[in-house]
Every structure is written in structure tokens, then in C-alpha cells.
């Protein structure tokens, strides 16, 4: 490349690095708090800690009941179960519905799509009591299955929208050819559509995972045993009355909770970029 192009690229890198640095500053502050001893909130801007300790991580990871049960392990497992279960259930429910919205023209189609959008508009804080009543009638109150159902159904509207947009970009000729060859709709769905839509499914899975993984208030209200709690409840328990917070443990918990999400992002990165082309352009 010419010298000018190289210089331009260098400039671009410089801008990107500065911007990324600024963006990461608050995150760096959280990391710093997690590895600095002491439980108070630090005010300085310097992201380099004065002294390093892994005590906070040890405290959080080592949380256990007096009788020896490793609480953190159980709660991590609960969070994983809830998040993965939500992902599987949410993806399944959204895929089938989105396929129908995309491929079929049936009465109530536009209404259904609009409804999916509308239910996202209602703030969820007030829906806690009816969900509580419904779950208790179904006997699912203090169980991960109950949480899983709530999370997946609340994630469905967004997933249906995104998946439908992606399904729209898959040309119908493929399906029509297969139909002529005598394949059933179901077979087409599993062997042709799903593999092609893998990127969008990855996106949907990621969103379902994030919704379930970070959710706090429903988990704290519905779960009735400490061994049934999820990780966000553990982390929020470091915040006490009158705002007094054990900042070190709080920050360490936040970092621990972010790691799986970042890892998942990294793994799905390629799919992610191609997958969010909702109703996008044909190449």
C-alpha cells in the first residue's frame, strides 16, 4: 500500500484505540475495584490499582452455607441451567413462530407481529405479582423451570422479529424446489432453513442467554431457597440497607458474571455480525 494509505490506517487505528480506551474506562474501574483490597468505592480515575488482591474473588467464589454446601457453585449451576434452558426453549419457540410469520400468509399475521412488538412495550416491573400468582398456581414457584419459562416467553417477541427478518432473506426458490421434489414442510425446515439461518439463531441464542443470565428482580422474588438462587441475586446481596455496599465483592461478582457473556460473544462473533441483518439486502 502507498504511504498515504498506511498513514491513514494508522490514524484510524489511533482513533479506534482512543475510543476503545475511553469506552473501556468504566469497565476498567470495575476491574480495578475487584482486585483492590478494601470494600469502599474508589474515586480516582487511575485504572491501575495500588495493590492487588484476589480476596474479593475468593470471597465471592467461596460463598457457602454453614453446613458446607458450596453456594456459589450451586448458584452458578442454577444460572447456567436457567440461561441455557431459556436459550433452547426460546430459540425453539421463536424459530417455529418466525418461520410461520415469514413463509405463510395467514389471517392474523400482521396482527400477531404487531402484538409481539406491543408486549415488549409494557414495563415488566408491574408484572411481578401476576407472574407470581401464575407460577404459584402451576406449582413452579421456587424452581428453575419456572424462571426458565418466564424468561423464554419474555424473550420470544424480540427473537421472533429478528428471526423473521432473517428468514425473509432466504430465497423461497430453495424451498419451492424441495417442495416439488416431495419433501414435507417440516423436513425443509430442519434440513434447509435452519442451517442457512444459523447466524440469526446464534443471535437469538445470545439474546436469550443474556436476558436470563443477568435478570435479577424476578429471580430474587420467586426463588425461595438459597440453593435455588441465581448469580445476580448473589451479587446484589452485597448491596445492603441505606446504600451501604461491599464494593469489592460487588465488583468481583460483576466481573465473574460478565466473563461467560464475553466468552459467548467472542465465540459467536462471526455469526453475530452476519446474523443481525434483519430484512437486509441480498448480495
Amino acid at each position, binding site marked *: 500500500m502507498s504511504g498515504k494509505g498506511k498513514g491513514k490506517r494508522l490514524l484510524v487505528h489511533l482513533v479506534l484505540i482512543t475510543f476503545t480506551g475511553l469506552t473501556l474506562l468504566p469497565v476498567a474501574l470495575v476491574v480495578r475495584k475487584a482486585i483492590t483490597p478494601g470494600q469502599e468505592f474508589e474515586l480516582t480515575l487511575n485504572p491501575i490499582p495500588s495493590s492487588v488482591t484476589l480476596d474479593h474473588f475468593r470471597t465471592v467464589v467461596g460463598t457457602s452455607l454453614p453446613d458446607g454446601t458450596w453456594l456459589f457453585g450451586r448458584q452458578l449451576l442454577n444460572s447456567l441451567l436457567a440461561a441455557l434452558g431459556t436459550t433452547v426453549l426460546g430459540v425453539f419457540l421463536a424459530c417455529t413462530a418466525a418461520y410461520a*410469520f415469514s413463509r405463510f400468509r395467514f389471517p392474523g399475521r400482521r396482527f400477531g407481529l404487531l402484538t409481539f412488538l406491543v408486549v415488549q412495550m409494557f414495563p415488566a416491573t408491574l408484572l411481578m405479582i401476576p407472574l407470581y400468582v401464575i407460577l404459584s398456581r402451576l406449582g413452579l414457584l421456587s424452581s428453575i423451570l419456572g424462571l426458565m419459562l418466564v424468561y423464554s416467553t419474555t424473550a420470544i417477541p424480540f427473537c421472533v422479529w429478528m428471526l423473521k427478518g432473517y428468514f425473509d432473506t432466504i430465497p423461497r426458490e430453495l424451498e419451492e424446489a424441495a417442495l416439488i421434489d416431495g419433501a414435507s414442510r417440516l423436513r425443509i425446515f430442519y434440513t434447509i432453513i435452519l442451517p442457512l439461518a444459523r447466524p440469526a439463531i446464534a443471535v437469538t441464542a445470545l439474546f436469550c442467554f443474556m436476558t436470563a443470565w443477568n435478570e435479577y428482580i424476578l429471580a430474587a422474588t420467586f426463588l425461595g431457597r438459597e440453593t435455588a438462587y441465581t448469580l445476580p441475586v448473589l451479587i446484589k446481596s452485597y448491596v445492603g440497607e441505606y446504600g451501604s455496599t461491599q464494593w469489592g465483592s460487588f465488583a468481583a461478582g460483576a466481573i465473574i458474571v460478565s466473563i461467560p457473556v464475553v466468552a459467548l460473544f467472542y465465540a459467536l462473533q462471526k455469526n*453475530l455480525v452476519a446474523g443481525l441483518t434483519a430484512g437486509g*439486502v441480498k448480495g
Partner: protein
Amino acid sequence: MSAPPERSRRGRALGTASGALLAGAIIGLTAAALYLRTRNAGDQLQAEAPARAMALALARSGAQRSAHDTADPDLLQRRVLALAGRDTVTLATVVQEPRSTKYRFLRKRRYLAHSDVQRLRQSLDRRHPGDKQLYDLANRVRQHGPVVELRAPQDGPVTVVAAEPVRVDGKQVATAIVVTAPRPLHVPVNAWPIGAGVLALGLLGLMAGRLRQRYIVVMASLAGLTALCWYQLSTLAAFYHRVLPIPSYALRSALQGGSPAPLTIPAWPLVIALPLALGLATLGHVGLGQRMVQALRRHRAAYLYVLPAAVGMLLLVFLPFGYGLGLGFFNHAHGTYTFVGLSNFIEILSGGGRPLSHPLNFYFTLGVTVLWTGTNVLLHVAIGLALALVLKDPLLRFKGIYRVLLILPWAVPNYITALIWKGMFHHQYGAVNHVLELCGIENISWFSSFSTAFAANLVTNTWLGFPFMMVVCLGALQSIPRDVYEAADVDGASRWQSFLHITLPLLRPALFPAIILGTIWTFNMFNIIYLVSAGAPGGSTDILITEAYRWAFERADRYGLAAAYALIILVILLLYTLLTNRLTRATEDTYS
């Protein structure tokens, strides 16, 4: 595929009239059924009434006489036993003035009359659980007046409890209490079969559109409904009370859950069946029924695909959603919900009697919310798009790393990053002011004026929200083929022109759903406003959702008002979506 049968004007009029009649009949008779079930509770109370009244009268007179200390306790006891009947337990307690001037909650208490002779004139026994119930009941009567209620633990045996104050010379000296022995709950009406019956008749009405003899079917369904409800009516003695508005009663009994109210009625069967039956029958009778059935049959594959999601959504999203919508019509106080109609909405939409510039005025908050949403979405899209344009260059190294790093604001839980940002905006110790000092600008007190507090919220939320937009734009940009740009280059278009005329239009289909969703999410972005500025100064940076939250959880638990707010938010967002849909046709797929 046959067309609907030819209908004369008279036929159509008859069809509409019969449809309306059927609808009215379904509403009325279902209302009656539900109401009558409710009244069983009242009936239970009524049946006990004579015995109860007598027992209470006796207890009253006994207490009055005792207060004047001229009673013959044995005679009184025998009369109580004789007249109260074998099935009631009658008691009267005395709650005296505080025995201890130090503790206002300590009182002497003893029985004046009791159906158990052993207890007569004895102090209430601390170890006796029944005595505690009576003592608490006496306290309630002292504070809130006479009490008559059914105690039905989980539809088990029912006891009727009645208590009233006994006054001597205008002062309350005792409480007369009657508790009946447990007996099974008398419920001749079961809601499920009736709900199913109503639904079946509605379906019948729907099908009627296909038949030539549809009027016969109409008459048959009407007759069936009448018979069903006559059965209900005939099991009861009288029918005097006023009919309650069904949705409010059903909703109220669902809302109050286990609160001690006269029997919670599981009204779900009827609450679900009624609107469904109504809708189906009316559709049938205006001729759409046949078309719908045909459509159902033709598209059954589609409906089958949608079914799993729909069922899940119905139970766990639409039902609570319906609850939330209905809650706006109620007022909540200490666990009891009362139907107040539109008064919550009127209170909000009239600005609550406050001037327009007052932060608690709905329109002020609405304005702030609209400003908030607009600026946020604008910034998110601008920054996201700019970054995407920079990062789309396939020859740029470390793209992957930049992408992952730039996504971190989204990954770290926002309840901690919001607090970090709040700390950074602190007047004295915050990082932002330190940086400004280095640049020579003097310290800003971020949270003491509206514009700066708003800016603080804006910066925080932009930081949180641009990763999402960046990724959307990346995806969309990568699907635009390079040859389009190359062709534009060849034609001599500048970079700005190619951006404006090629990139933007091709991005629109991808961007608009994301923008709509982003708008909805930002409109309801609770965490940032609540944690960063907390509405400062004086509640002016609060948006509609934080106002609703404050009404529900910080100011007197007014859940009804908060739900009304939420409903208004919903309507606003819905209007916005419909408007933008019309303008951009974005929800139409591009391949039909």
C-alpha cells in the same frame, strides 16, 4: 372455495341482530353465573344470619349486664346455650383499658359469656390458640367496626365469624363474637363446565354462518344458554343484590389472592371463555365465521407452527399483560383493590392538578421522555454507524479484538456500570470534572440543573447502547456488495455522496426494525435514569417509566396509578410504531 351465501339486506339485518342478541345473552347470562357463584358466599353468611343475630344479641345483653355487674352468670350461660343452637360457639370478651400505662399494647381481657361454661368469666388463656383469634378479632372490631366474614382456608371447611362492639352509655365495653362450627363449603355452581358450555355455544354461533338454517342454530344456542343459566338460577333462593361488573370483580378477586375477602372465586374459566365466545359468535353472525373456518383449515400448517409460541406467550405474557392493563382501572391500598374506573387515567392526563412546568406533571415528563428517546436513538445510530463504517474495512487488522472490546459496555451488568458513571459525574471527586479541569473548564455540578443531569444520563446511556447499533450496522454494511461502491467510485462520486445515496438507503431495511426496538427499549430505560441522576434535580429528569415506578414503590404503593402510567406508555409507543410503519412499511417483508 365457495363464496359466502348471498344475503339480502333483511337477512343481514337479522344476522346482525341475532348476533348482537346472542352476544348480549352470553354476557348477561355469564355475568349472572359468575355473580351467582359469588353469592354462594353471601348465602352461606345469610343462612347463618338468624342464629348469629340471636347469639350476638344475647352476648350483647350479657355483656351489658355484666358491665353493670348485676348478671346472673349461670342463667345467662344457659340462655346463650339454648338460643345459640347446637352449632354455634358464642363468646363475648372484654377488652379493658391498658393495664400498663407504660405499654399501650398490654390489656386485661376476660370472657363475660362463653358457650363453654368452664371459660365463663375467665381470663383469655395465652396458650389457647382459639383465644388469641378471638382477642385479635376483638381488637379489629375496636379499630374498624363490626366484622362479618367467611374463613375458608383453601376451600376447606368454612366458618362464619361475626363480631360487633357492645356499648354501654356510648362507650364500647366489650365485643360480642360468634364463630360457627366448620361446615363444608356449599358451591353448587362450578365455573369450568359453564365456561366450556359458553365456549361451545360461541363456537356453534361461529359455525352458523355456513348453514342455511342458521337461524335455527341461533335459536338453539340461545335456548341452550338459557337452560344452562336457568339451572343456576333455580338452585338459589333469591336474587336481590345488584350485579357486579364482571371484569372488575373477576380481576379483583384474582388480584387480592389470599387476602381475607369473602371467598376468592376462580373466575378464570369464565374470564377466558366469555370474550372468546363473544368474539366467535359475533364473527359468526356477521358472516365471517365461514371464512375464518376455511382460513383455519387452509393455513393449519402455519397455525401449528405458531402454536407453541402462542401457548407459552398466552400463559406467561398475555395473561400478566392483561392483568397489567386491567390494573390501571383499580386503586390499591393495603392489599385491597377497588375499582375506580378511569380516575387514574384522568388524574394522570390532567397533569395531577400541577402546572405544566412541574416535574410531576405528566406532560412535562412526557416531553422529557420524548427528548430522551430522540437524542439517545440519534446518538446510538450515529456512533454505531460511524464505528461500523470504520470497522467494515476488510483490510483493517485486529477487527475482531476491537469488536469484542467495544461490546463490553453491553456485557457488564448495567447496575454496576451505571453507579460507576454516577461516581464519575460527581461534582468534587468525579473523573469527568477532573478531565474538564485539565482542559481548563471549571467544575460543573452535574446533578443540580436539568440540562447537565440530562447530559449525564445521555452520556451513560449512549455508552451502554451504541454497541448494539454498531453490531446491527456492521451486519447490514457487510451485506452491501463492494461492486456497488466501485461503480459509484468510477462514476466520480465522493465518499460522502456514496454514503448518502448508496449506503443509507440500502441500510434502511436493516436499521428500521432495530431503531423501532431501540426506541421502545430507550423509552422504557429504567435503570439508567434511576441509578445515575435519580431524577435529580427535583424529579425533572425522571422519565415516564421511573415516575410509574416511584408511584408504585415509593409513594404509597399506588400500583393502580403506576399501571395506568404503563398503559399510557403502551398507547404512546403503539401509536409511534403504527405511524412509523405506515411511513416506512418496514414491517412488510420485502419478498412477498
